[in-house]
């Protein structure tokens, strides 16, 4: 029902539901959200300009620090772009190591997200359980690279550290434990009423809207659309590994949870295959400091979706222009669509549903084209608009 008066509710930048500074202005009529205005840019640091001021080798470490959760996806994308400009290719063993690290990162990122999602709906027990098991992956990272979050594995022309035989057995043991726990969580999210009551039919994103608004990654796959850069445009060693692209057609928050849970199980299969069929040989090739003139676009399937890097070189040791399009930015228009017409109480879980990462996203100034245009909808108008669809 409509209360006739629209109330503006600011959300963030400091908010318990978000670990990062993102600001949204919600216009609510009673309990219903009628308008959403995202205000991003609190995390804007000027990374793209910083890329131009640093050399190609220094930029590997800067690319890693675009985002702490999907740090490996950013360096993979960066090194692939520069390797293409240089005309070199990473050795086969390095390409397999890249896949293993990328999939371990996907497990860590998705597990983190499942925990946060459970926290948003007030199910802290699951949050604590998932985060406890996530430590298994972080232990593997610490064993392989020496650091829990920024692994610094990729370099231009290969990877910096090898995965030895004694590590392989430890990783496999950890994967067995993870597989057992993940199957348990998959069962929990499908049967537990605490989750079903809050997630089924919440934050609907229809397949047509998902495509129109350019959603990416698990958000798009949860609307039933099969889209994955790992299959569509294989990089690293993905062309040699068979795996399923997980889709669900519920279009709601529950589908997003299920897609991510099943993707983690799929990642475990990819890692097992990678560890078994990793070819012997060198892990990196020497590359020159100067990069020949040219421009290149590189794509990677980050845990949150399709990540695009663009590089333009001018023959020196520093790039002339660098551009990053992160998956969260692609998902923001879809997020606004999901929130419209929903309840105020569902805002945190729908917002968390796209797995927003503002550190990745905030690298451009947001221009509000509607700035001079104030408009509000009543519930009747809203219903009329969406009843047609």
């Amino acid at each position, binding site marked *: 029902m409509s209360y006739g008066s629209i109330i503006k509710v600011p959300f963030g930048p400091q908010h318990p539901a978000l670990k*990062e500074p993102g600001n949204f202005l919600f216009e609510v009529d009673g309990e219903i959200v009628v308008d959403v205005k995202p205000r991003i840019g609190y*995390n804007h640091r000027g990374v793209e300009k910083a890329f131009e001021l640093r050399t190609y080798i220094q930029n590997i470490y800067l690319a890693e620090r675009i985002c702490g959760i999907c740090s490996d996806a950013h360096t993979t994308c960066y090194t692939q772009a520069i390797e293409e400009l240089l005309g070199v290719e990473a050795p086969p063993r390095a390409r397999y190591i890249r896949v293993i690290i990328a999939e371990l990162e996907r497990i860590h990122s998705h597990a983190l997200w499942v925990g946060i999602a459970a926290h948003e709906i007030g199910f802290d027990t699951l949050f604590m359980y998932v985060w406890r098991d996530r430590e298994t992956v972080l232990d593997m990272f610490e064993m392989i690279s020496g650091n829990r979050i920024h692994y610094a594995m990729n370099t231009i022309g290969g990877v910096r550290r090898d995965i030895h035989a004694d590590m392989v057995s430890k990783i496999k043991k950890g994967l067995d434990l993870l597989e057992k726990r993940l199957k348990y969580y998959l069962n929990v999210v499908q049967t537990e009423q605490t989750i079903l009551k809050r997630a089924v039919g919440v934050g609907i994103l229809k397949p047509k809207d998902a495509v129109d608004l350019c959603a990416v990654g698990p958000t798009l796959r949860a609307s039933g659309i099969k889209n994955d850069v790992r299959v569509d445009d294989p990089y690293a060693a993905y062309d040699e590994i068979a795996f399923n692209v997980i889709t669900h057609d519920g279009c709601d928050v529950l589908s997003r949870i299920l897609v991510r849970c099943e993707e983690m199980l799929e990642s475990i299969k990819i890692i097992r295959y990678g560890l078994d069929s990793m070819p012997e040989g060198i892990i990196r090739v020497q590359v020159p400091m100067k990069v020949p003139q040219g421009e290149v676009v590189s794509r990677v399937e980050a845990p949150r979706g399709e990540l695009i890097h663009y590089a333009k070189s001018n023959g020196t040791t520093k790039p002339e222009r660098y551009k990053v399009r992160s998956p969260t930015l692609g998902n923001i228009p879809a997020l606004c669509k999901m929130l419209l017409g929903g309840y105020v109480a569902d805002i945190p879980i729908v917002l968390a549903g796209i797995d927003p990462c503002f550190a990745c996203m905030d690298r451009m100034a947001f221009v509000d084209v509607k700035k001079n245009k104030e408009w509000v909808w009543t519930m009747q108008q809203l219903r009329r608009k969406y009843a047609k669809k």
Partner: protein
Amino acid sequence: MNLFKWARTKSPWIIHFNTGGCNGCDIELTAALTPRFDLERFGILLEGSPRHADVLVVTGPVTLQVKDRLVRIYEQMPEPKHVIATGTCAISGAPFKECYNVHGGIDIVLPVDAYVPGCPPKPEAIIDGISKLIQKIKKE
């Protein structure tokens, strides 16, 4: 030691604010609150509102847009209040030091009581930083 100080040192409530970092420190701080490390066994509780918090844990370099918000959150906290700078970015701004939209470390804007270095610091290091701050509060 009076009652208030006793309560504060036995159970400091922390509030977390990311001022533009890469998220690495944030997830390590959250990991410190989860079962493996369990910061709550020391009575340390993550609080949502600045008005309830004793300690402000800041991660990330201070960006131009977030600076006013950071000061506002600090001003909303009741006295006595303390600030912990977590991670290399919060300490000096590196590797974003020369970026056009970054002020640098937190101490440019706020008085800082404890620094926890690392990129990102391990949860053990964050726990150590907070426990050292508690020792410092006891001596005040």
